[in-house]
């Protein structure tokens, strides 16, 4: 549990972070809340040679609502999402999902951008952003670009971000239609064994821990769009998944769970 030696620089703005990444190349890692990166470093599973700490880059923090769009700075903590009255009103699914992450200590440090950039298929927030049809904003030396959430997660712990890019913000639509997040775990603070997020009465459905990336359940969405009831739509929740195996669940049990949870989520969301 002792990390290897690592260099450290602070970057107190998005621009400074981009510059630091440019300088240190692929040896460098951004440090946001540290709730995923530091444990990996302590186990020596991650060994960056330089940490670029954006923890105090205040221009990357905050929630603003403009018409139909909610813009959230990448450094906004899970706790801030959970407790923002504006977000609870404009996008209750996202605020609720944030409240289901880990424990209070984790939620105070962990950030939305970190959670997305880490691209862990077992994480909660990527599912919310996927179900909501969100857009991610990446900034690199060449400027900013937008990436649809559906294109962002490219592999296990891999995203569409280039090595010198900083995820600066996330945009989700205002979404007050029927929603639900079904997180199935054994202890309150744990990652989901399986999770299902539903937005807008089933227009957006996504799955947690059912493959190597956070997944959008397109088959379920299509079934709902085609007028299927919750049970019938949930029956195709397994389509396109490759559920992992661990102490808590083998693939068959995950497949069972994902159908059950999808049905429950759709019912709760009024589909």
């Amino acid at each position, binding site marked *: *549990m*002792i990390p*290897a*030696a690592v260099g450290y620089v602070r970057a107190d703005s998005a621009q400074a972070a981009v510059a630091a990444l440019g300088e240190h190349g692929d040896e460098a890692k951004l440090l946001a809340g540290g709730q995923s990166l530091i444990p990996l470093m302590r*186990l020596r599973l991650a060994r960056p040679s330089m940490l670029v700490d954006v923890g105090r880059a205040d221009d990357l923090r905050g929630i603003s609502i403009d018409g139909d769009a909610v813009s959230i700075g990448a450094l906004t903590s899970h706790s801030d999402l959970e407790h923002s009255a504006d977000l609870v009103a404009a996008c209750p699914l996202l605020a609720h999902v944030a409240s289901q992450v880990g*424990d209070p200590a984790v939620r105070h440090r962990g950030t939305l951008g970190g959670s997305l950039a880490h691209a862990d298929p077992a994480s909660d927030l990527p599912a919310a952003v996927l179900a909501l049809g969100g857009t991610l904003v990446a900034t690199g030396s060449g400027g900013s670009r937008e990436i649809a959430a559906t294109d962002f997660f490219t592999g296990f712990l891999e995203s569409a971000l280039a090595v010198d890019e900083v995820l600066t913000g996330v945009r989700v639509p205002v979404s007050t239609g029927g929603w639900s997040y079904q997180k*199935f775990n*054994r*202890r*309150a*603070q*744990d*990652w989901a*064994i399986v999770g299902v997020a539903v937005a807008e009465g089933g227009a957006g459905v996504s799955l947690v821990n059912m493959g190597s990336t956070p997944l959008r359940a397109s088959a379920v969405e299509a079934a709902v769009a085609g007028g299927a009831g919750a049970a019938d739509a949930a029956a195709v929740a397994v389509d396109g998944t490759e559920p992992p195996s*661990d*102490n*808590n*669940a*083998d693939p068959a*049990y995950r497949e*069972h*769970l994902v*159908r*059950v949870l999808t049905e429950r989520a759709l019912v709760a969301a009024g589909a």
Partner: protein
Amino acid sequence: MTVTDTPFAGGIVGEARLRKEDPALLTGEAKFIDDLDLPGALWVACVRSPHAHARIDGVDTSGALAVDGVVAAYSGEDLADTWVAPLPCAWPVTDDMKNPSHFPVAQGKANYAGDIVAVVVATSRYAAADGLEGVVVDYEPLDAVVSVEDAESDRVVIHEDLGTNVSYEWPLIPDPEGVDAAFEAATHHITETYVHQRLIPAPMEPRGVAVVPAPHNGDMTLYSSTQIPHVLKVMAALTLGVPEQKLRVIAPSVGGGFGCKLNVYAEEILCMALAQRHGVPVRWTESRTEAAGSTIQGRAQRQTIELAADADGKLTAVRATLLADMGAYLQLVAPGVPLLGAFLYHGLYDVPLYAFTCKSVFTNLTPTDAYRGAGRPEATYAIERGMDALAVAVGVGADEIRSRNFIPTEKFPYDSPAGLVFDSGNYQPALDRAKELIGWDARMAEQAERRAAGSTTHLGLGISTYVEMCGLAPSRVLASLNYGAGGWESATVRILPTCKVQVVTGATPHGQGHETCWSMIVADRLGVDPDDVEVLHSDTAISPLGMDTYGSRSLSVGGTAIWMATEKVVEKAATIAAHMLEANPEDLELMGGVFSVKGSPDAEVPLAGVAFAAFTAHDLPDGVEPNLQAQVTWDPPNFTFPFGAHIAVVEIDEVTGAVDLVDYAACDDCGNQINPMIVEGQIQGGIVQGVAQALWEEAVYDEDGQCRSANLADYLVPSAAECIDMKLDHTVTPSPTNPMGVKGIGEAGTIASTPAVMNAVVDALRPLGVTGMAMPASPMTVRRAIEAAGGGAS
């Protein structure tokens, strides 16, 4: 609460007083091993075998030596001459027990993933960790023995020189023919097999060691996060050949142990050896992942219990057969752990005939040893789950089958079929009270309603009653069990010149609250403020004699010694007071801190005056030594036998298999209570720890002997969020074997809650055809059991 006579008159014992220990613990003022500031200390890091079973064909430490800050690196061979004796196992339960030699650093072969194969010494913890990566070990992996069944088959013999994986077989069958006859004649013959999964003790503070040598005069101070500084001192002296009088062992604040720090560990002996060799302080702090493989684990046995009963469900015989997993080596008391349950597989039931056999085997897994309850949770689990099976067979309720079999109150002291004498007990009221607390009848009605309505959320009620033997232990009984030490405890009570009090105890707290309780016992008798009583412990230079803390022994053995030493001091003070008052010592009484002559209220002298007179020694009676101090060593005449009844209520979602603990009630009886708040805390914590075995915790190993639950994300220790409000009460049946009438409560919750929850889980699912359930009852396990029984909505 039953009203009984109490030996306490001071009004302090029995109060729910806040713990003295807590301000320092809560503010961080308390110092744990890793907080010690030891300038110039070298850090040790251990190269541990990644293989469960492998030959070591070579160890090359040169890469480590090239790392900045690394001072030295050693293989097992390099240190082979250092050890005078192997790591100790103090409980050779049979004369022919097989005990593989076990040294701090393995040579030739690694026998579990985590076995130390080399060690790096460096100027910082970071450099030591970097150094680990430079050590190259040439392993030749061998087939690993992971299950007790595979071990028993001797397919692969782990310790070739022993010729077998079986360490010992230990039978306790007073009347073999009688037992056989009883089973033949029985109307009901229940046979159940249960597996107690391995558990990782996971105290809040992992282990840690620091050794400060004084090379010129030969002194050595060993700091260790241990439950047993006194035992450790003796064992370390023997293992390393350090003169015992030169060795001082200190357990600083210790963040929990649950039995896993009741041991003599490789790292303790290793750090001593390295401190000797390098002549400077040496330290090691265990990481959480390291702790998962290198600190002993608990439980790990397969048990078969058979019950013989007549048509009414009255037990006529009990037979228990165990196959216990010792792990790769025998740690300090591991062989004896099954024996601590050996006498209790008939629970608190009146059974004439009894048979117990335990076979213990080696596997290529982390060594096991005592874990909260040690043997008694296993025994209670078997009999209490078995009783539920019997209830079903007989067709009566889980409460009724127990009531029919309880040892009747008038039979105490009870000669048990296993050869013990249960000191005192009154079992039915505890069960009645637990049923009342949980609202048994209403819950049963609710269960019936749900079943009738075809609900897929099933309600289950589970009872577990228990009796345990604790207060380890009468030394003569330990001798008869081949244990390598006694079971006494030592205490000193010293009234200082200013009438403040020092108490020295040989019991070693690591979270229990001895300072609070011991000071209450003394203050109650002396009539002083408990805050004026300081309890000293856990340092062999201050408390040279002791047998430490485990087996719910501290109060009934160590506390009794405190009580007796206090009486002795009072006696001496009375002699001096009588001299001052020109009265007879026998005519004096001490109440509220004042000695007075019975019947003449004006003739009095405060204890403070006596204490000062004892100090100045200007005018003491002839033959009386100055100062008020007494030392007592108490060896109990018997164990104590706390008991109680616990009831769990669970809700199970048939569709997902998720089990939700929704209600819990317990009525425990630990005799007289010193501090009811501390008793309640022990029960609550114990219950949660036992529920954890039922629902969450399991050291998962794959077929290669790799631990797949080596961190707290994968090893599911419950958090506060998993705890529910518990309905707790108690009865009071004092123990007649000690003057305070106390019994012990450190393990009770852990003992009773596991079977209570599992009985509730099975009860909930019985309509679906489920008759058994493996632990932990994880959602997948439960769902699979439902499906296997042919049920399960989807």
